């Protein structure tokens, strides 16, 4: 049975949910990052332009009043560990140059070299600086306001970490939570699967739909409908098999008795009438045999032969062999051997296995006119019927095995004479009971004879 080869529904669902939740989270984080980064640059740039415009007039006035000075403004506060870099005061620096490019004035923390000597008005980037340059329209003094690019990069990094770190932290939590939740929510599916697994040809009881979600309740309900129909069909089949047996056998018995009664009345066996009567009886016997085989075949192929009861093969063999011992001719010839230690148990249908053994013994009786017929029950669960007849020649044995495999569902094998007669019944039952059939000729340890070995699943 190909079981558990496909991954379970809850595992598949858990994996898919995991993958998609993480991907969407990542995509959202990256989108947010891109948007906020643009925004940060915009804010920083606005600060540059605004400061430049404000400072320009102020500085022009300062130059006119006091002339060029090196520095203006306070010294920066000492660097502090717990003070975030991107909101550090004085993150802006400025330089003021003359129209010819001489440094006239700078903030205390600005470098002594002109940062962007030839820069046009507007934004430019030099080394690690983002610079906004503006020229006074009257004095032509130029102001360069700048901030360090690394400030911006730090800001971006912080942002990125604040967006992605929670994801990293949540992934293991999701990894535990999602499978747990899917398993819990899909418990109904597991429950239904377990119930269906318990159903077999012997257990067709309705599935319980209590506590199942709507979709599964429909599956359970429709399955119950089908189970009920199957159960009814099997019951009908069993009743039909029993009735058919009764309907066929009673008139056959009547006919036989009437013919045998006439035979008694006729008395002398040498008349033409007595001969004709004997032929009628022979035909009747053929009819009885075929009716019996058809009934056995229908029984072997019906659902009624699917029972899995634990049974002792010695008891089975004893019951069947005792049937044959009622024939005085077989009392001497038919021998039963059972294991001396331990019991041969199998799971199966007592009646079907009895039909199987009955056919094997009938075959042996028919094809081995004399000599011992041995029925052996062997451990762990084997039935062996050995006769001392002529056996089956090798090529015929091959044909029989070939026929077994080529047999179509409607091939009229059961009615062919010879070894094939009961063999298809035997074969059908062995297959249904999960056993293995072997024909060995000549029988092991003998010059001739046929040994039929049926290996059944031990239980």
């Amino acid at each position, binding site marked *: 049975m190909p079981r558990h080869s496909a991954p379970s529904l809850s595992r598949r669902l858990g994996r898919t949910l995991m993958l998609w939740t993480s991907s969407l989270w990542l995509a959202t984080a990256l989108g947010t990052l891109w948007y906020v980064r643009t925004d940060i640059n915009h804010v920083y740039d606005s600060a540059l332009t605004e400061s430049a415009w404000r400072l320009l007039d102020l500085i022009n006035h300062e130059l006119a009043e006091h002339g060029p000075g090196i520095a203006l403004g306070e010294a920066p506060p000492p660097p502090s560990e717990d003070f975030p870099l991107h909101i550090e005061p004085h993150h802006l620096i400025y330089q003021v140059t003359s129209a010819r490019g001489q440094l006239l004035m700078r903030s205390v923390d600005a470098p002594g070299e002109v940062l962007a000597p030839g820069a046009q008005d507007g934004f430019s980037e030099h080394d690690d600086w983002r610079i906004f340059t503006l020229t006074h329209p009257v004095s032509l003094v130029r102001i360069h306001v700048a901030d360090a690019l690394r400030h911006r990069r730090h800001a971006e990094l912080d942002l990125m970490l604040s967006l992605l770190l929670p994801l990293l932290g949540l992934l293991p939590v999701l990894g535990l939570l999602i499978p747990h939740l899917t398993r819990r929510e899909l418990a109904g599916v597991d429950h239904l699967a377990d119930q269906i697994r318990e159903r077999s040809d012997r257990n067709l009881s309705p599935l319980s739909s209590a506590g199942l979600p709507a979709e599964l309740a429909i599956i359970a309900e429709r399955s119950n409908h089908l189970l009920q129909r199957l159960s009814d069909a099997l019951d009908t089949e069993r009743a039909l098999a029993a009735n058919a*047996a009764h309907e066929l056998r009673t008139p056959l018995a009547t006919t036989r008795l009437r013919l045998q009664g006439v035979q*008694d009345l006729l008395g002398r066996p040498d008349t033409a009438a007595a001969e004709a009567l004997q032929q009628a009886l022979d035909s009747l016997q053929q009819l009885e045999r075929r009716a019996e085989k058809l009934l056995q075949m229908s029984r072997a192929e019906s659902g009624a032969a699917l029972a899995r009861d634990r049974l002792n093969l010695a008891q089975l063999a004893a019951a069947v062999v005792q*049937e044959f011992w009622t024939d005085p001719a077989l*009392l001497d010839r038919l021998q039963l051997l059972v294991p001396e*230690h331990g019991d041969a148990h199998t799971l199966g249908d007592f009646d079907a296995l009895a039909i199987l053994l009955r056919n094997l013994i009938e075959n042996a009786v028919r094809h081995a006119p004399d000599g011992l017929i041995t029925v052996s029950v062997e451990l762990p669960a084997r039935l062996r019927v050995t006769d001392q007849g002529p056996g089956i020649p090798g090529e015929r044995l091959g044909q029989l095995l070939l026929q077994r495999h080529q047999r179509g569902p409607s091939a009229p094998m059961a009615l062919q004479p010879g070894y094939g007669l009961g063999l298809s019944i035997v074969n059908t039952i062995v297959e249904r009971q999960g056993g293995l059939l072997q024909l060995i000729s000549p029988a092991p340890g003998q010059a001739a004879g046929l040994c039929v070995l049926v290996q059944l699943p031990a239980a």
Partner: protein
Amino acid sequence: MRILLVEDDARLADALASFLRTRDFVVDLASSLAEARSALPAARWAAVLLDLHLPDGDGLTLLPTLQRQHPDCSVIVLTARDQITDRIRGLDAGADDYLVKPFDAGELLARLRAIERRRAGPGGSGSVVTLGSLSVDLANSRVTVAQQPVELTAKEWALLRVMASRPERIHSRDSLLDALYGFDDDTGSNTLEVFMSHLRRKIGRERIQTLRGLGYRLAADGA
């Protein structure tokens, strides 16, 4: 020998009754369980031929009443049910024989004759069971092996009688212990094995087959 035939199929009942009457049996007919129940006290039946599929129920339900009223009456089940479990059920319920329709008239006669033999007490004739070189005269309590008479004790004979009167059966320990039950001394669980070994020494070791878990039977010579 008076026989009650319980069969609901009128044609079969008529055919069977007229056949048996030609063989000098006295046959009465009942076509349902109810008819059979009312007929039971009417005579001292030697045998009942019983169909199982009757219009008012399962034929086996008649057996308890029958065994109470006629403890020595034999029952042969005549049925269309050929499943082995049906057969076991019938024999367990107390039927002596089980014939599946369509049965051979000669076979039915043989079973009835066997009943006649078993009913005939000591002094009767024609009740010799022969198994190879072993010959058991049930009526006169005589046993010979290869024409040589064998002396048996009463208990050994009781066991052999049970096995020889139904040589086609495997006799369970319980049924054989039942045969020893009538004797006054103690019948412990191991005495059966003791008597069996005595019996084996006298009639031949291989003549009694032990089938583990099932019981004992008289085996043929070749076994």
